[in-house]
């Protein structure tokens, strides 16, 4: 038999995460205001990662999910996008933000996280019984990820070690297929994360994420040409959840902003359409 989730959450009981205002964007399938949406299609909640806000998913994926009949939502973690920020922001606060938004959705949701957002989703899955979880180019931290970031962008990464902001370069995020002017425009929107000096350190020493509650199935999606997440990390994360990563060669880290954004999101929706949940 499988083991039960952790019962004792002393930290959350005695020292709850500080609340913030959260930005949530949505795209609904046509006719949903009349209640025609497919009852069997769960709502989707997209969680962007470091430096990205809800806008990153509103750009292409939200609308596309809605046209395929899903209610799609995208949120901004605290310190990102139009969400508020609070002192002492940690990965625990990110996971808290995800569970808070998920529990406000009308029905049991699918959590889809990107980058550090995927780690927040991984932790949220251990708290909230999602219908399924999808980890897109997941940054689960550890030494390997840190070295990859250092090699690809030393100037952006080193300040974070000393509590400064973690910078991300265009070349790290986008594949070659994205037109240069588009990439420049997105790059301008990828902002620093406000007031979370602890998070990069936490990423370095991150603990193993707990098993999802309610046995939610988990899919890992990534690219072997991702400059942020090495292929080995993708495989490691997928193995943790008992599978192999679904790979899209040639794409950059920001798969949802890539010129080929349609391919991964269609693969995710196809996986969700299958009747295994």
């Amino acid at each position, binding site marked *: *038999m*499988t*083991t*039960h989730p952790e*019962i*004792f*959450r*002393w930290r*959350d*009981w*005695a*020292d*709850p995460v500080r*609340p*913030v205002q959260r930005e949530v964007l949505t795209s609904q399938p046509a006719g949903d205001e009349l209640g025609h949406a497919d009852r069997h299609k769960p709502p989707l909640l997209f969680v962007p990662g470091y430096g990205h806000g809800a806008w990153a998913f509103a750009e292409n994926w939200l609308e596309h999910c809605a046209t395929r009949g899903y209610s799609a939502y995208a949120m901004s973690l605290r310190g990102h996008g139009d969400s508020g920020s609070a002192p002492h922001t940690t990965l625990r606060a990110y996971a*808290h933000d995800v*569970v*808070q938004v998920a*529990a*406000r*959705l*009308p*029905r*049991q949701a699918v959590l889809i996280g990107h980058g550090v957002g995927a780690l927040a989703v991984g932790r949220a899955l251990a*708290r*909230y*019984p999602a219908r399924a979880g999808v980890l897109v180019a997941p940054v689960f931290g550890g030494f390997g990820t840190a070295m990859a970031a250092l090699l690809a962008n030393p100037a952006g990464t080193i300040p974070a070690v000393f509590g400064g902001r973690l910078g991300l370069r265009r070349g790290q995020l986008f594949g070659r297929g994205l037109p240069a002017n588009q990439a420049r425009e997105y790059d301008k929107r990828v902002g620093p994360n406000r007031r979370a000096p602890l998070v990069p350190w936490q990423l370095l020493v991150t603990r193993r994420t707990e098993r999802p*509650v*309610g*046995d939610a199935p988990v899919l890992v999606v990534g690219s072997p040409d991702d400059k942020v997440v090495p292929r080995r990390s993708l495989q490691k994360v997928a193995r943790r959840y008992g599978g192999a990563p679904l790979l899209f060669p040639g794409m950059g880290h920001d798969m949802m902003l890539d010129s080929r954004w349609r391919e991964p999101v269609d693969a995710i929706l196809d996986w969700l359409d299958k009747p295994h949940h």
Partner: protein
Amino acid sequence: MSYDSRRAGPAGSDGDAYPWRAAAPTERAHNVCVIGAGAAGLTAVKNLREYGFGVDCYERETGVGGAWNWRHDRSPVYASTHLISSKPFTQFPDFPMPDSWPDYPHHTQVLAYLERYFDHFGLRDHIWFGTEVTQVSPTQDGGFDVTISGARGGGSDRTQRYAAVVVANGHNWSPKLPSYEGMTDFQGEIIHSSQYKDAAQLRGKRVLVVGAGNTGCDIAVEAAQQATRCWHSSRRGYWYAPKYVYGRPADQINDLVYALRLPLRLRQFLFHRTLKRTVGDLTRFGLPEPDHKVYETHPIANSQLVYYLGHGSITPVPDVARFTRDSVEFTDGRVVQPELVILSTGYLPRFEFLAPELLNVDAEGRPRLNLHTFSPTHPSLAVAGLLQPDGGVFSLMHWQAVMIATWLQLRDQAPDKADRYWRRHRGETGLRFNKAKVKQSTRHWFEVSHVEYLRAVDKTLREMEAA
């Protein structure tokens, strides 16, 4: 009575639309029956579903929320009811209350929360409203025949067979009424707190509130603001914990101390010291010195009672000795003349649809269950929510439901192992899950420390999972 085809009765198979009309019990033999759709029932349905069980839940009212639904005639809530445990302890661990809600939500928010839980996890298809369970009797094969009828007298009885039954009928709806000498001759009005709904009932009256539980203290505080006089009768001195200490909800500070795994005596010392420093010496207000340590009675969380004592709007009095035609005499000989007496004397658990021996009921009428949950004689019978914890109860109900689901799954998947487990543990009834020596009273036999109880649940789950 007409149903549409999708909801043709839980027994509705495709072939025969109304098999339950037949005299013989219809088969839901692989399903679990949950009785009641309050907080305990809802989390039982949700967690049993998550473990793959088919579930039929019967609810006598037309909505969810049980005691927390003020529309229900058995609901004990009054207009001003707020939670007495803060959000992190009250909420279900896998479905947090919104960040935008206060530390101590109002009862209408609690109901909204339960309704959201019901919708979010799609429980609607598993709950039968307006349906009352009148009889649960064990069958030869280890299951149960459950007899149900329309709660408002509509529809005929029908009986269905289930593999297991989870009783979640609540324990705060059947008033416990004390009897005092001369009570029947009293000309003023006497009501039980279950009939207290709104502060308007107190306006301009001389009011006596009997009982210093959380409800009694709440009503005394309202009487202090609305009534012309308020006497508050308690039979012993209590520890009145404020809702906030050191700028934080008191239960969060309490758990900080728990988390350090300090011994009970040290925790009691710290608690006493905190109360002495913040609330102060209550005997100054004429209250008796507590005759027990904290954790030895159900905690009272009320910051305002002491405030109004200090303003002279509440007069503390001891236990009632007798009633006369127009007055009430207390054990210290004092006599007062109230117009309205509110008995905040609590509730008693009741299980009318079950033979007492199924729940191992003792001479005093208390079910003696394993982990306050499992019947020691019928392995497929469980009670959910029959707990008086020193904190929020929803989280305990959740883990209780997980434990019931894990147990039923073990019985289903590995009957031999389940049998061995059962033989080893069935006798462990009447355990306390409370290191403190709890004072005798009619409800304190199921008073548990949330930490001790969850540790026992954790240990049980580990053992079942390893079996």
